[in-house]
């Protein structure tokens, strides 16, 4: 087992080195922005994967955590002048608390019913925020442009700082996911996903561990939301609380491969690329092409590879040795 670990560590470091150097090679701001979008999607996918992948509780309402993150850090910044770095943490904590309150009743529901409940909760919150005067309703909130620099997490001259912040956030999210995967919690999540009743018979409290999963997942999702707010300087219910956001987050992980550490990163690379190119081809957002693409992706994954792209790669790796063996037999 130690023989497998070494190349994995080397591979991970190589990947990180590549990510660190990439924006120094690709200097076009539009392309850098595209890379940032991929990292943002990857970070959300990795966060969603903790509850939806490992623990197998499919949430189609993660926009609610994303929105809580975005609105919390933005409101704290606007009203109290709090640094978005702290606002990001605050958003994570608020989202975690909300997720536990929401999970308590919703985790009584199984499978599709849980997924439907998450959609309902996200819709309710979206309607509430849209009608909230304090949160400026459908008009949305803007962050002031004047204050730039690291402390304010606002950068007007270069995309580079955003790139490294989101890369850092992605790395932290992956590390958290990795730590869970390796600990007893990861084993319990997979047991709950496979056979909840058998897990209970082995002493695993379903409610406790599902709540752990959603609390961690929502924490990181909210941090992603805060980052979005800082990058765009403007949020409204349509951009951070919409159903499309929830579906996109889930789809990134499902497309890449649920329950795998880096599947969601792969999924983000593919989905965001397709999305951006379709935007060039069919025009800007709001035309609904992104929804058509999501639907197509869901159908393709469901029919051809329920284990996502990672599943396909895994299958290939399994087949190649057997193909080699066959070739040797023939020779």
């Amino acid at each position, binding site marked *: 087992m130690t023989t497998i670990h070494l190349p994995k560590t080397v591979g991970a470091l190589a990947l990180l080195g590549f990510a660190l150097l990439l924006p120094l090679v690709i200097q076009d701001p539009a392309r850098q922005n595209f890379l940032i979008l991929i990292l943002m999607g990857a970070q959300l996918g990795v966060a969603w994967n903790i509850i939806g992948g490992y623990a197998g509780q499919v949430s189609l309402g993660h926009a609610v955590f994303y929105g809580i993150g975005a609105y919390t850090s933005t409101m704290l910044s606007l009203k109290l002048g709090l640094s978005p770095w702290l606002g990001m943490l605050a958003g994570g904590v608020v989202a975690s608390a909300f997720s536990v309150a929401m999970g308590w009743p919703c985790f009584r529901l199984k499978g599709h019913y849980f997924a439907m409940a998450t959609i309902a909760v996200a819709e309710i919150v979206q309607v509430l925020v849209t009608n909230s005067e304090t949160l400026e309703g459908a008009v949305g909130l803007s962050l002031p442009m004047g204050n730039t620099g690291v402390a304010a997490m606002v950068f007007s001259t270069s995309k580079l700082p955003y790139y490294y912040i989101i890369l850092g956030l992605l790395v932290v999210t992956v590390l958290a996911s990795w730590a869970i995967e*390796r600990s007893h919690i990861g084993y319990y999540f997979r047991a709950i996903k*496979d056979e909840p*009743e*058998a897990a*209970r*018979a*082995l002493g*695993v409290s379903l409610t406790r561990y599902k709540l752990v999963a959603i609390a961690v997942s929502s924490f990181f999702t909210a941090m992603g939301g805060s980052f979005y707010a800082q990058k765009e300087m403007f949020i409204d219910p349509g951009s951070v609380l919409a159903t499309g956001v929830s579906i996109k987050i889930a789809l990134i992980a499902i497309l890449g491969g649920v329950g795998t550490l880096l599947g969601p990163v792969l999924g983000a690379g593919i989905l965001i690329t397709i999305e951006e190119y379709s935007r060039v081809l069919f025009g800007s957002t709001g035309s609904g092409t992104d929804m058509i693409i999501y639907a197509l992706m869901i159908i393709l994954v469901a029919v051809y590879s329920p284990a996502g792209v990672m599943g396909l790669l895994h299958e290939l790796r399994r087949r190649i040795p057997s193909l080699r063996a066959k070739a040797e037999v023939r020779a």
Partner: protein
Amino acid sequence: MNAAPLLAVDGLSKAFQGLVANRDIGFTVHHGEIVGLIGPNGAGKTTLFNCLAGFHQPTAGHIAFEGRDITGTTPERAAALGIARTFQIVRVFHSMTALENVMVGAMLRNKGVAHARSRALEELEFVGLGHRAEALASEMTVSEQKRLEVARALATDPKLILLDEVMAGLNQTEVREASQLVVRIQERGIASIIVEHVMEGIMPIADRILVLDYGAKIADGTPEQIAEDPAVIAAYLGE
């Protein structure tokens, strides 16, 4: 053998919307005892298991484990107290390896992953699946999966193990192996209650046999007494 019973069931009844699956059942199990639980299909054996393991809330009656009332407990609490079980229709964690399946059981007493791994290997060896540790549970035979469930249950360090038809569908050699396995579990000081239809598997090894029919206990005694009990013969052959 300890004087105080490990498990004491008294007046246990379980009804599902009027359908009575268990009716006023009482019995005891002592430390390290092998108790066979037999009866025709639909006699209420699995329902009784589900009540004991915390999966069903009894409608009436009491269950005491080590002198403590555990009536209406939860499965996770029952497991923590030392009641382990297998399932009639196997419920292995199919996407995990055999080793990982058993590790989940071992984590009940010690959350350390390395500890769980060595503990799980011991139990896999114990049930004769040491060589299959890295096999995916979904790719194992049903017979292997049944043993895997036993290993997983044993890894929780139980005082009582509930085995639900672990011998069903096995050939004669496998039945003999399964019987020997139950005896080896007994040698570790663990009591077992075994639901079984395979008489040649259970009769030679059981200290006592309980017979259920239409949800009620109709006999309780040594295998020899049970084999000659007119009520049992009637239940099995029809009046």
